């Protein structure tokens, strides 16, 4: 994640008020309702500091998340997409995230192929009790995207 | 009649690009396509046909009809009159020009809806058209030009009236060309403002309209010499020879009318995959769709190409689809071109370029379909009207069917 020095300095300075190079970065976080959404909620109630410029989409299960929704988000101007669900094995629907895991791994390998920097897409697992882990996951991800700055893709 | 040296062509186009956008065929990684021309790009006239006709430059694949925007205007600043609303629009930093305030909210309403029609037409010069491409525009002009007392399309008309069509007659027609079969020809001037014909070291140019005459004022043109005129005539005659007339035009409309329920449509459409390539590479197909595209509170109503092979083209909200089965959609394309359109607009909707044959993924052959439906050739199994040979066999026998293009009612109007 080597960002040019100038970009890095601008990135970290600007992330506090969420405005980078004149346009606020847009990050979409797709969270599964049973674990990651609850974890993020927990982080919120525990007043753990986290960047505030990302939008959460709550889904019943990451197994339902169609990879095309991620590409559609990028096409409509998202600068970063994070997907987080239950740890494999804890899925409320028992096998949702096993299917999801394969789809997102394929997605993770195809996103760079379209000229989108790899750091702009990440999928992971955060359980309902791991508020601290959520804070760490979302902060690193959003800071990483902020450092890259708004995306000027022309293909997607 | 004037003469232009081959070497002067780039200068001629550069002169034209002074006040108009020039479009010309160019070869880009193996494919010849009509592309915006800029000085220094080489015009490709060797290959006969560009991959698609130049239709998209006058009837673009998508264009904006109108833009709209919902503005939530809070009471404090609620404009009392249209003037205030316009002022408020100009002040709001993201209010771009072009939008015109047409509605002032009724006292109770708090929503301001602004609508602005989009109509800008860049004048264009399209060089390197073939006669079949130019004829495509003539046939579309009738639809969009309100022929027969129907409606008039300002978007198409705005572009068409400022477009100049420079046609280059064909030197080596392809086996899939059948312009003479539909009342045209490899050197036909219908729709052309200037017709160029290739002769040794240059082109003989003849104007056919005021726009054409204006183009010929360019000083680079020289007086044409007798041998050059003769060479042009000879090249036209030679090209005329090479184009076959694969089906009978005279009885075609009646044949299509009589064969509406024929099982042949099922046979002929078996290998069709109902995609729509034939209609999008065709210089004449003009059917379109109108959709609203909105992001949050602003968007536009836009027109985009559509085609009767699209399964949801006639799908009604009730779920009923009058043309649900593939053969009925397949049939509609040929009926529209050789029966429905002629009945309403008194000309054919096909100029015989053959692109629909060349670029169809399974090579559906319009000549075969029309000779079967025209009732003058029983359907030989898997046999294409124009082709015979096996891979290791002989060249396609040029099936001469019905001799020269009969001067039936359609082709007279088509002239």
């Amino acid at each position: 994640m080597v960002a040019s020095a100038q970009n890095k300095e601008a990135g970290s300075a600007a992330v506090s008020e969420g405005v980078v190079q004149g346009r606020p970065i847009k990050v979409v976080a797709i969270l599964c309702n049973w674990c990651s959404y609850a974890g993020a909620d927990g982080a919120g109630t525990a007043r753990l500091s986290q960047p505030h410029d990302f939008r959460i989409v709550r889904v019943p299960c990451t197994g339902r998340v169609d990879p095309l929704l991620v590409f559609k988000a990028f096409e409509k101007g998202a600068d970063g997409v994070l997907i987080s669900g239950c740890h494999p094995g804890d899925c409320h629907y028992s096998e949702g995230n096993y299917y999801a895991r394969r789809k997102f791994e394929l997605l993770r390998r195809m996103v760079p192929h379209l000229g989108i920097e790899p750091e702009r897409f990440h999928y992971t697992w955060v359980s309902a009790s791991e508020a601290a882990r959520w804070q760490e996951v979302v902060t690193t991800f959003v800071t990483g995207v902020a450092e890259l700055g708004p995306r000027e893709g022309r293909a997607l | 009649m004037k003469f232009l040296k081959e070497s002067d062509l780039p200068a001629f186009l550069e002169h034209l690009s002074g006040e108009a956008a020039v479009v010309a065929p160019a070869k880009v990684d193996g494919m010849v396509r009509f592309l915006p021309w800029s000085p220094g790009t080489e015009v490709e006239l060797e290959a006969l046909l560009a991959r698609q006709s130049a239709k998209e430059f006058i009837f673009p694949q998508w264009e904006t009809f109108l833009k709209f925007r919902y503005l939530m205007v809070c009471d404090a600043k609620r404009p009392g009159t249209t003037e205030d609303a316009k002022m408020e629009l100009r002040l709001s930093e993201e209010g771009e020009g072009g939008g015109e305030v047409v509605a002032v909210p009724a006292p109770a309403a708090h929503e301001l809806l602004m609508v602005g029609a989009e109509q800008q037409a860049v004048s264009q010069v399209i060089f390197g058209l073939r006669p079949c491409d130019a004829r495509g525009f003539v046939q579309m002009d009738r639809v969009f030009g309100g022929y027969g007392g129907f409606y008039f399309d300002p978007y198409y008309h705005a572009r068409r009236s400022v477009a100049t069509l420079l046609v280059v007659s064909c030197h080596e027609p392809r086996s899939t060309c059948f312009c003479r079969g539909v009342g045209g020809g490899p050197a036909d001037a219908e729709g052309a403002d200037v017709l160029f014909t290739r002769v040794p070291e240059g082109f003989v140019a003849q104007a056919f309209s005021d726009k054409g005459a204006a183009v010929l004022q360019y000083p680079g043109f020289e007086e044409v010499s007798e041998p050059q005129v003769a060479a042009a005539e000879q090249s036209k005659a030679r090209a005329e020879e090479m184009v076959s007339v694969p089906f009978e035009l005279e009885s075609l409309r009646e044949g299509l009318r009589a064969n509406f329920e024929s099982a042949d449509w099922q046979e002929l459409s078996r290998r069709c995959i109902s995609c729509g390539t034939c209609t999008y590479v065709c210089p004449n197909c003009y059917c379109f769709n109108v959709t609203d595209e909105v992001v949050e509170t602003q968007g536009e109503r836009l027109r985009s190409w559509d085609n009767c092979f699209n399964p949801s083209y006639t799908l009604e909200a009730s779920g009923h689809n009058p043309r649900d089965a593939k053969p009925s959609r397949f049939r509609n394309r040929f009926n529209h071109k050789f029966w429905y359109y002629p009945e309403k607009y008194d000309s054919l909707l096909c100029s015989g370029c053959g692109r629909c044959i060349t670029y169809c993924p399974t090579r559906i052959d319009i000549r075969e379909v029309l000779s079967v439906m025209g009732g003058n050739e029983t359907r030989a199994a898997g046999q294409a009207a124009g082709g015979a040979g096996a891979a290791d066999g002989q060249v396609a026998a040029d099936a001469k069917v019905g001799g020269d293009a009969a001067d039936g009612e359609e082709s007279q109007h088509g002239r």
Partner: protein
Amino acid sequence: MGDEQKATHPAAAEEKSGASGRRTLTFDDVETLAAIARAGHRSGNPYLPEMASVVEVIQETPNIKSFRVRFTDDEVMQSFAFEPGQVGQLGMYGVGESTFAINSSPSNNDYLQFSVMQAGEVTTALHQLSMGDKVGVRAPMGRPFPVREWRDKNLLFIMGGIGSAALRATILYCLEHREDYGEVTILYGARTPVDLTFGYDIEEWQSREDISTIITVDAEFPGWEGRVGFVPTVLEELAPEPDNTIAALCGPPIMIKFCLQVLERLQFADEQVYTTLEKRMKCGIGICGRCNVGPKYVCVDGPVFTMAELRELPDEL
């Protein structure tokens, strides 16, 4: 209304240049029709809707609402003219447009009424309209019922379900010029009494002496004392006299199919029977190519057709 650029009409220009003759439609000549149709498009741009706002919403049945809309520009509202049977495109910016019969009376310059059954994307969005909301209207369109030609004839209106919306304007026109016509019979059927639209009209029509109104529902329904039976069966029992009578039909295809058979048995000639078709439409002005039945476009050559004309067209309804 957008740019005021007045586009001259090349068809008129072409007219002078002697292009082959204009194709005359079977009823009135094209001049009046084309002039009426274009009256609504002041800017010369037939794709640009006229802005209107909803003044009243009537819940006719659980899935049918009538919207009374008034053009925002009062001058347009006053000068607006249409013939009974013509249609209009009612649209919401951001969703799209759909074609509906204008079913308020042609003499009413206060509002236009469109009845919308919820079926697809646009109609579902229209059903969320409330007072004061803005809509786009492109009207009038299409070929109307030739009410002037029907003078001194008996009229038989046969309607099913939402088909009533297509004939209401014509019925209102004929009732306003009642003396011009012979006997007027209205046969209107629906699946259940709840599905009967225009309850406010039905009472008035049933109370009038000079017309006979028969309302039927498909099957017994608690609390319904009126007639029970499918429209075609009731039509058979009614056995109207064919001579000097015009039948105007609109309803679900199955009803039209059986009613036509009944009318045929009653010796109604094809020229006497009119219907108004419904197709998927986009431009509404005879250009985009999709609403054709054979060579005829339902949006400009129709939606009103006589059975004689429909028999000539290929069977792809």
